[in-house]
């Protein structure tokens, strides 16, 4: 068997989902009995059949990828419930096997996939999408690039000299998101409960799960705006006012400071006399958080 053919044959079996009792399926990907499929390329030994030897890799694969996905989406698991989340994860990974050398990227398509497959979240689809977006933003904010931060005085002098036509860039690790639910509070609560559960008895855990399900059901929609960012390389969520979100989004889209503020003013009903003070305070705060960096100069060729 040529190397490529052998590797394709084995990978298809290794990546085929396990049964509900977490064993290798009796049928191979090509429909033949798995015993026959495995024995075509794997030798048995005095203790294990070809099937059993292949099964070790099949189980390792699924335990590994499901565990990695579960770590990245503990909030989604809380929204869907453990059993549904497990089933959904398998379906997701069948549709989206890893195409990266790092498992860090395993959940990169979760939002898009969940949007196309609403049956998994059912009536909680909007909440599920919100929490997935937040959890993926957290992954990206965790290891996003940092560039040299601009101080408030640098921004004030440069912006003043340029008459508001100066552009500012947000740090690559800052993610700006709007949500239909207060998912930041929800995720922090889930994480707290998960940490506490490590020390809890089974009965206590079951009670917690029921409490969590009730909490999800009661969660009321409320539009919020968030920046997912880092302080001292730890990831934080910061609530933003609607106007702040508009300005920052404008800057992230490449608008000048003046254009970003004007656009925000048009979209938001804040009295015009309140804008100068608000803008000054906001920019000072964001600069203190280290969110701004110098935009890259365009080359002469454009």
């Amino acid at each position: 068997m040529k190397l490529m053919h052998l590797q394709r044959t084995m990978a298809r079996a290794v990546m085929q989902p396990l049964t509900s009792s977490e064993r290798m399926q009796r049928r191979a990907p090509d429909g033949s009995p798995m015993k026959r499929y495995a024995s075509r390329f794997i030798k048995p030994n005095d203790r294990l059949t070809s099937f059993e030897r292949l099964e070790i890799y099949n189980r390792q694969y699924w335990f590994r990828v499901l565990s990695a996905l579960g770590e990245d989406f503990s909030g989604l698991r809380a929204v869907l419930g453990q059993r549904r989340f497990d089933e959904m994860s398998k379906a997701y990974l069948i549709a989206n096997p890893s195409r990266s050398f790092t498992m860090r990227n395993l959940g990169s398509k979760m939002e898009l996939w969940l949007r196309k497959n609403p049956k998994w979240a059912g009536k909680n689809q909007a909440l599920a999408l919100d929490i997935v977006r937040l959890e993926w933003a957290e992954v990206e904010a965790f290891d996003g690039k940092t560039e040299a931060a601009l101080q408030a005085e640098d921004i004030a002098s440069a912006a003043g000299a340029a008459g508001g036509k100066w552009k500012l860039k947000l740090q690559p690790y800052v993610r700006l998101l709007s949500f239909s639910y207060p998912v930041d509070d929800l995720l922090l609560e889930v994480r707290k409960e998960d940490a506490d559960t490590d020390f809890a008895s089974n009965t206590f855990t079951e009670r917690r799960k029921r409490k969590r399900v009730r909490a999800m059901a009661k969660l009321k929609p409320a539009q919020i705006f968030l920046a997912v960012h880092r302080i001292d390389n730890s990831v934080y969520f910061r609530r933003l006012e609607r106007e702040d979100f508009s300005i920052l989004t404008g800057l992230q889209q490449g608008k000048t400071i003046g254009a970003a503020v004007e656009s925000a003013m048009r979209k938001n009903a804040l009295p015009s006399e309140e804008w100068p003070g608000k803008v000054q305070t906001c920019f000072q705060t964001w600069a203190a958080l280290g969110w701004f960096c110098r935009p890259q100069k365009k080359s002469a060729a454009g």
Partner: protein
Amino acid sequence: MAANRFNGFTDLGIGIGLRAPHYHHILTRKPVVDWFEIISENFMIDGGRPLQILDQILEQYKVVQHGVSMYFGSAEKLNREHLRRLKELVKRTKTPWLSDHLCWGSVDGRYTHDLLPMPYTFEAAKITAQKVREVQDFLEIPIAVENVSSYAEYHDSEMAEWEFLNEVVERADCGILLDVNNIYVSSQNHNFNPFDYVNSVPAHRVAQIHIAGHSKYRKYILDTHDHPVIDPVWKLYERAVQRAGHTATLLEWDDSIPSFQEVHDEALKANKFLSATVLAETA
């Protein structure tokens, strides 16, 4: 003998794997450790805490990179994005050599994130060696390939595992990261004498040695890196350093990780065997 062209002519001593539960201890207590091995993929990122920690470690310690997803043995082409990011990290760490596994794990662009065993064929040896050479040329540092633990063997194999290893390293002209725990695990799973393996490896190519613990099940042994090193593995280690000399040695402990001190103490048990090699060389 142990400082050779496959480990950048270094003689690093005994190291341990750099793992997150130990970060605080290492950065605050600054324990004396000969060197740390990092999993390259954990640091092939754009920024954030992992790189901040790495930079702090690099200020104090020697660091060697060990990868888990180059998949020298995959029949498909090398992942250029992987190589680009790896080279950036190599520049950052100034690792004297770089290791990854003699295995495959991806096909048609899909990754299993596992270390799958090779068929020991001449075709596979040729393809694997070619890829090792490409990586070595691109990264411009010595490469050492590590033997993996395996749980399956193929009908297609034309030679023993150690013969395949020798075939690859000779064709690629690269080093070996000899994992004596993996040799032990595979020997139990496939019924061969692990000393035949250790005695067959070209000692002059051994850049580094791995030691670790594993888990024993009823019908097979799994390489879990969650226990101390057992005596039969220390005996293999002893034989390996008798042949290869005072070689950079690293203890892997990746699951159920105990305190830093416990891991380091376990690693330092290797001193007994390394000291004997020094005595033998000076006698």
